[in-house]
């Protein structure tokens, strides 16, 4: 059987990536690839009709296939294939004819003592994922495989295997459909790794393939990390497991890279091994080593037949794909004038609230202001019709209400006051545009009441203005427009 691709150096690195920042430490850089397992959002398991759901009574979602009973046979779940195609297309992969293979090894949570996976011919191959800042990470493959059961270890410290008296196995999870997404080792910075995981998650959720929750185990990230002098061939790598959050991805990779750099510097070899990330001590640890790395003896699964989706199915899935996060960010960015990878654009798209912002624009509002409010108040999109937000932004941009007043109105709208009608709320709060003479008299009074501040401000100390503006705001009960006050002060100084 063919061997997995062996990367020696950057021959296939996307040229546009060269402009991006690389992490560097003592003259070394990191080379990172990520393997992400995602649980597919199907009703039933990959090869049998037991339910695929989280957190139920142990061993209640079992059948002969999930338990690996003698005489049981697997039958492939069509919807799992559909979701695999969806996520493959969303990651720009080629969706191809694929076959299943047995990966043979003994472990108590492996009911058949082999896992049905895909080896030579995975369903998805040769794609990529662009990070929000444009860095492109290649994706080697995305293949279907079944999940294992879960073991609980009794008697050891912290529920660990080491020192345990015995273990208990629950097979509810055995057979749950997974797709393993393997990236190329293109990542050169911990932030890129984190961004990759976040973006991948957004894509998976957007296409409905998985809820991809690291905290629930429906998305699991393993990192392959090595280090090298820039431009040199790749060195031995280690696989890091037990990374349970986006933040841990960055920390674990950085720790491991530094650990390996220290070894290289000391002239010691980096041993190829699997290491565990320990969140509590911030280090990776080697597990008690096995005598021999297992030889998985992959061979084609004789109980299953080839899967060949064909053009019709693939195109149907492609046509039904929703707009992906990157596209939505671009659209929102263009509409609002904010960069696509700015915090507000990223956050609003992640929250699925971009359509709402654009709707406010379509309803005649100021889209940039709408974005600002939606970013600042997460509940706005669900609580208030976009029409009302549009109205508010119009009131703001015309100067009818100040920025501060607008914020208060937003809170009131969310609370449902006056049917969330901004005009009504503004009126009820007594917000009216202050006329210029009223404003000017407040400014004059502030100057009179704070002669020291006025003197400093006239002398050129911009900071002194704060006290004056503050006094005006207080006297006006917040109704004064801060910008107008500043303009008046500057005018009077001149």
């Amino acid at each position: 059987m063919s061997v997995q691709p062996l990367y020696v150096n950057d021959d296939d690195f996307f040229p546009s990536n060269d402009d991006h920042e690389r992490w560097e430490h003592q003259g070394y850089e990191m080379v990172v690839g990520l393997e992400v397992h995602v649980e597919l959002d199907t009703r039933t398991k990959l090869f049998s009709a037991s339910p695929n759901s989280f957190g139920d009574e142990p061993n209640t979602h079992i059948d002969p296939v999930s338990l690996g009973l003698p005489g049981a046979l697997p039958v492939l779940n069509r919807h799992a294939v559909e979701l695999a195609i969806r996520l493959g297309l969303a990651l720009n992969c080629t969706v191809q004819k694929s076959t299943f293979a047995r990966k043979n090894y003994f472990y108590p949570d492996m009911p058949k003592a082999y896992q049905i996976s895909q080896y030579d011919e995975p369903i998805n191959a040769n794609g990529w994922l662009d990070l929000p800042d444009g860095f492109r990470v290649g994706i080697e493959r995305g293949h279907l495989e079944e999940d294992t059961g879960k073991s609980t270890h009794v008697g050891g410290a912290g529920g660990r295997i080491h020192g345990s008296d015995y273990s208990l196995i629950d097979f509810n999870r055995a057979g749950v459909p997974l797709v393993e997404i393997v990236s190329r080792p293109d990542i050169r910075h911990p932030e890129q790794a984190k961004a990759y995981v976040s973006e991948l998650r957004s894509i998976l959720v957007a296409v409905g393939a998985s809820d991809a929750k690291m905290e629930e185990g429906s998305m699991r990230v393993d990192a392959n990390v090595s280090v090298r002098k820039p431009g040199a061939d790749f060195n031995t790598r280690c696989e890091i497991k037990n990374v349970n959050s986006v933040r841990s991805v960055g920390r674990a990779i950085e720790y491991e890279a530094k650990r390996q750099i220290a070894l290289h510097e000391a002239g010691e070899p980096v041993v190829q091994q699997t290491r565990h990330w320990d969140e509590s001590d911030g280090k990776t640890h080697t597990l008690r080593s096995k005598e021999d790395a297992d030889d998985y003896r992959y061979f084609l699964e004789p109980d299953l037949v080839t899967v060949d989706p064909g053009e019709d199915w693939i195109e149907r899935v492609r046509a039904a794909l929703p707009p992906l996060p990157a596209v939505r960010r671009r659209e929102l960015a263009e509409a609002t004038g904010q960069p696509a990878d700015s915090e507000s654009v990223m956050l609003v798209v992640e929250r699925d609230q971009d359509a709402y912002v654009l709707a406010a624009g379509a309803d005649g509002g100021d889209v940039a202001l709408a974005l600002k409010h939606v970013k600042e108040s997460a509940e706005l999109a669900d609580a208030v019709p976009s029409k009302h937000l549009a109205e508010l932004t119009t009131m703001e941009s015309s100067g009818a209400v100040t920025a501060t007043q607008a914020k208060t109105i937003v809170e009131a709208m969310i609370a449902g006051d006056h049917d969330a009608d901004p005009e009504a709320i503004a009126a009820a709060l007594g917000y009216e545009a202050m006329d210029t003479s009223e404003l000017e008299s407040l400014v004059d009074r502030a100057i009179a009441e704070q002669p020291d501040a006025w003197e400093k401000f006239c002398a050129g100390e911009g900071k002194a203005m704060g006290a004056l503006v503050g006094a005006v705001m207080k006297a006006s009960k917040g109704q004064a427009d801060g910008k107008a006050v500043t303009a008046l002060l500057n005018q009077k100084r001149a």
Partner: protein
Amino acid sequence: MTHINDTTTLTAAGIAASVRSGETTAVASVQRHLDAIAASEADVHAFNLVLADDALSRAAEIDAAVAEGQDPGPLAGVTVALKDNMCTRGIPTTCSSKILGDWRPPYDATVVTLLRDAGAVVVGKTNLDEFAMGSSTENSAFGPTRNPHDTTRVPGGSSGGSAAAVAAGFASVSLGSDTGGSIRQPAALCGTVGVKPTYGAVSRLGLIAFGSSLDQIGPFAHTVDDAALVLEAISGHDPGDSTSIEQPPLDLRSTLAQGVEGLRVGRITDLPAGASPDVQGRVDEAFDALAAAGATIVDVEVPAFGYGLTAYYLIAPAEASSNLARFDGVRFGTRVSAPDTNQMYMATRTEGFGAEVKRRIMLGTYALSAGYYDAYYGRAQKIRRLIANDFAAAYAQADVLLTPASPTVAFELGDKSSDPLAMYLCDTYTIPSNLAGDPAMSVPFGTGDGGLPIGVQLLAPALADATMFRAAAALERHAAQNGVSS
């Protein structure tokens, strides 16, 4: 000394007809077979488990249904024995191994359900070579089965118990499984009909797997018509088996009596040598019989035929090494306690598996292992393709092929058990059909040395089971009408 009871003169078709019409009762039919078991089972040891009470109560249900005017099905009241590698719900299923202990499956194999729905009555689970690995049933953990024609001799294997049960008259029909000849070879040695259908024609769901790409379930019977009757009842698409052909049940009986006028029967000119003269003599007579009945004999070549043995003994153990890994003491069966899981695996499997099973697991593991895959398993799969291609070419010129089934008549117990390679040669003529996925069957055709039964093997291309049966029926008619020299 033979142990052939008079129940062997009855046909399943006849029994079903008379039970359905009310002429006989299912209980009476079952009782006759239980009496035969009582008379001879101690000497033959066909069964791991006799289900006398279950059988009688099931028979009573069938009689009650008939009395109410219902039709219990085409196998009403027919006694059937099941090879003990087919799952029967709530009933111990051992694969004639110690490792399964007293395990009772929580579900029935599909064929078991189909038999029951057709009105058949299961009288017991039959002995086999452990996990279906063997050609003599001497590898059973529970002692060998003996050939009812001569109890100093083997019944063949691995479905020796099922073959003997029919030969001795313990059941009208039985089911076996055939991975490299495990139905056809014991059928030949015991003088019964034995059929391996087209791969995928019969569901494997509930059959405890040995070689997944090779295994098929099939019937033993006294007559070709009975074998057809059973195979019709157990074949057909099963959505629970992904390799199950998307076809309705086989239609075999409707063309059975059509004869062989114009049928092209192929003689494989480059067939490997090894058949004893008495066996070869019967095969030659079979060609003559078919020619006399109107068939045309043609010479064909199947150049890769002889490599089948090697390919099989790399592929089957490889698949088996994986299929048998689930016997690990965690979820079912026996467990030998140990301080950690890894040692538990080793102790349980070492203690629980017999020598031949361990031998094949190691051979299969080696054939798949890193560095050796290409040389062994990889090459074996290519030879498999060559064999399939060669058969396909032969079938352009012939409708069926005719060969020996077993190279010899039944050999004595202990004769080959110390020489695994010698034992493997028993499968020389049966293996290639499994590799190609094509149907094949053994038909009794005279006797050989010592008056022991001989079977000749018919082969046909995939899905041409009915043609194969038609030729088998012609041979059977000839043997009955003209006799076959002994």
